[in-house]
């Protein structure tokens, strides 16, 4: 089994491969120069456009491709490398894994049917997936949190905001109030915009940049692995973004920013683990209360995390590689 890791340009696609590299070394094939730069000290890295990458995989006789992306069609890989097996590894809650009963493009991708194997993190995704070739392995990001002791680090007096993009983003309705509240509480506000924001909503990026220029306590962060930034923060502002679920691994307070763009109940499932503020509410008071009593909702958070993910033992990557090797030896060869 000659393995290659395929990473779409975008930081959210990097961490599963980071976790897998701890268990199995293999070359990284990526469409992003930034991603390439981040992996060069860990393994061989090849950066090129997708069609070229597939040719280069063929040249290296790659026969199992791990990919984090549902934007690369497995058939396109197999067209060039007919014997290749394409394995999907999830990158978070925004994986388009819902079943075909819900045809909205952003929650379901037809490519899901074409993966030779899907390695799944959460019980919910397992339930919604329609691809029979799937296995529950656990959450690869949790592996990194455990392995690096991120959840045990003493946080700085920072408040993290990693908003979603588009209509789900809380930036437009909430930015001014949050900047004001964090200044009052003498906390640093660290904003990590969604990777799509730069491309799809430059006006949002510009608005946040203006806040950085105007407010010395605000930072715009850019990190490969959001978990490392989470480890430094004492509270997070959440919305529909998958980052809210990731935050639960740290068992620290989270305050949810509700707004009219979140118009579906399923988008607010995670809201049960923290206070929810609506536009017009006194967000400063809510933040102050959570910061003063950070453990109050600890049991809610840990329960929600355990209910959601399969086997949070820090060995999801090992199970992922073992499952793939089993499929290779028992079914694909």
């Amino acid at each position, binding site marked *: 089994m000659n393995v290659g890791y395929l990473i779409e340009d975008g930081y959210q696609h990097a961490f599963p491969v980071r976790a897998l590299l701890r268990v199995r070394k293999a070359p990284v094939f990526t469409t992003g120069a930034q991603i390439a730069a981040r992996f060069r000290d860990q393994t061989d890295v090849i950066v090129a456009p997708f069609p070229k990458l597939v040719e280069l995989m063929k040249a290296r006789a790659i026969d199992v491709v791990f990919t984090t992306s549902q934007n690369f069609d497995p058939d396109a890989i197999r067209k060039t490398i007919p014997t290749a097996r394409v394995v999907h590894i999830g990158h978070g809650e925004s994986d388009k894994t819902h079943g075909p009963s819900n045809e909205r493009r952003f929650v379901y991708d037809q490519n899901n049917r074409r993966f030779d194997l899907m390695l799944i993190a959460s019980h919910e995704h397992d339930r919604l997936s329609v691809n029979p070739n799937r296995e529950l392995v656990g959450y690869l990001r949790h592996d990194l949190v455990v392995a690096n002791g991120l959840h045990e680090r003493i946080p700085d007096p920072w408040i993290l905001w990693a908003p979603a993009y588009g209509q789900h983003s809380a930036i437009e309705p909430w930015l001014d109030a949050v900047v004001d509240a964090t200044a009052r509480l003498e906390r640093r506000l*660290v904003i990590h915009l969604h990777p799509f924001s730069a491309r799809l909503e430059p006006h949002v990026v*510009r608005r946040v*940049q203006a806040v950085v220029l105007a407010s010395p306590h605000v930072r*715009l962060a850019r*990190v490969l692995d959001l978990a490392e930034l989470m480890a430094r923060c004492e509270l997070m502002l959440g919305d529909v973004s998958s980052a809210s679920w990731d935050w639960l691994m740290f068992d620290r307070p989270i305050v949810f920013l509700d707004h009219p763009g979140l118009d579906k109940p399923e988008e607010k499932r995670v809201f049960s683990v923290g206070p929810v503020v609506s536009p017009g509410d006194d967000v400063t008071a809510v933040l102050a209360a959570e910061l003063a009593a950070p453990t109050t909702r600890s049991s809610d958070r840990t329960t929600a995390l355990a209910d959601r993910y399969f086997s949070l033992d820090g060995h999801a990557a090992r199970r992922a590689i073992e499952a793939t090797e089993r499929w290779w030896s028992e079914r694909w060869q």
Partner: protein
Amino acid sequence: MTGGIAVVGAVPPEAEVNASRAQTALLEALDARGIPAWPVVLADDQAVAHAIEHADVVVLIDSRPVHAELARVTRLATARRLALIPSGYAFCEIAMRTCDRCPLAKSCPSSDRVAVHRALAARADLIVYASDVQRTASEQFLGVRSVTKIIPPPGIPTLPSAPISTDAIAFVGGDPMEWQALFAWATANPQRSLVIHAPLRDGATPANVQIAPPLNSRTQLQAIAAARTLVILPGHPLPYGIAAAAAYRAGKEVIANERVGVAAHATDAAVLDRELAAAANAHVDALVALAAQPVSSHARPLELGSVLLYVHHIGLGDSINFLAVASSLTDAGAHVTFAVPAGHHPLLADQLASVVSAQDLDLATARRAHDLIIEVTIQPSDAFAGDIVEDRWIQLALERQPSAMSPMHEQFLALFARAGHALVPRRPTIELTPAELAAGRDVLAGIALDRELVVAIHPGAGNPNKWWAPARFAELIAKLRGRGARIVLVGGANETTLVDEIAALVGGVDVIRCGTSLRDVGSVLAAATIVVSNDSGLMHLASAVGTPTLGIFGPTSERLWGPTHPYAMGVRSRSADPATALAALTADEVERAFISLAGKVAAEPPLSPSSRIAVSPRLQRIANGDTVEWRGRAVVAVSGGDDPVAPVVEACRAEPTWSSLVESIDRDLVTALLAAELIVPVWSLRVSG
């Protein structure tokens, strides 16, 4: 009141357009009450600074929707007391508030423009709207403030008396909604006869409608006075409607819709007359009351501290343009380290303190040493590698500009403006040493190009997609030679083949092969009269060293990326999309643009010392009593005994050089006559044909 009141407008009062009329009327009303007041043009940075420092109250009465002014508008927030008396909708990208039909598709609430004006409105100590219509249309964007008043605008003119010669009259710009409404009114009233003063338009016109040429603001009033009815049916909210108010006041029939501010308020002539008469005093009263209030405590300029402006993965033109941004940051008090690509460093190193080569910079150390990191790249993904957590950092991606209408570097100043940092726009300039400039002139002199109109043509560009076809350049060169231009082809180290191809096509053209020194290239470009160039780094360099430049554009926007010299132009085919625009651009179109640019250059000293000056062929001398009018493009009138113009004209019949002319005759006079085109450079006669 000790400091007086500064009334800031986008245009000077003497322009006598609608926007300046309100400014003039307010100044007159203040003067009538004995209150010291003076006009300030927003683009006059020194005058704005003086107003902020000395005036008791700064009044912003008008600003235009151009990005360069956002920084200047932001400066006003530091005034002791600030009043806004907007004459329109300066927060609107198109100044019209036609949101339902606007091409920006309602994305503007997030724009720099709205943010800047919203912050200014939040800071203002007084906001005066002309009508409820203007207030409603504005507050959706600027927010609701308790310091708001509604007072009709000052300076509503009185109609002159005139016999009725027209039934109904209307004035239209380019708004199709207004055309539709007027045609609908005319169709519904076939017994009426409607004259619409407007630019010519295609399409059918109702039988009872006559289209007449547009009128200026003064003749417009005369036309209304001679009409029985004024029809005013705009498709966008008119803050007040000066023409409508004047017509109502004169007791004329006015057909108006609810978008006309005055129509939504008061239409009775007597009531309106009383209100308008009181308006000027109401403005003055409000300003006097404001001047008596304590000074706002929050009017403090923000400090930028130390700034690392780190530009990489960008072209030469971008580095030159960001030199202007770095200069503006420095002017605003920031301690700037300007890190540029290694290849651009020798050109830029002496232009500003702390210009460093990015290649030589220890980035990690530099990031720690600065308060603010501004990373500039072409694309977002070009950013430097590594996590960014601690830094106060932003990345500016040149391909992600919020506006397609304003120069790239000005848009970055707008970003700072919306953050409250008042950066004064600077034009990108490169200062070469006298020795370097002399060396450039020597290069041209060495090929006998020192006494003519010298046009340097740069046919290359770093990106081959920006190359205009060599055959088109050859065609253009033939045309320009026919107009008396001496042509020199300038090529970079990697453009030998391209330059040789064009030289072979035209024959006899001088070629200057530039090595790798950008300063050497700059000195040659500085010595030329005009540079014609593809959109390239050398185009920006030519503009920055002070040479009028004609940029040839196709896949890129001349509005965003055009040369910035005051006498610079971008030419681009209007009929094609970006992918085909360069191929569609003809030599005739570039030649026309060249003639237009050359005309401006010819009228603007300093000219080359060796330029020969002649009498303009269209010069007329008309004597009328003891007054003599010399007519060229403009008129110079002389009255009394001596006529200082005559000796200059006489001297120019011998076609002296510019240097000998200004040595023997008062330079200011010669300059004025050149600007009026009574005298002209000899080369311009052949260019204009």
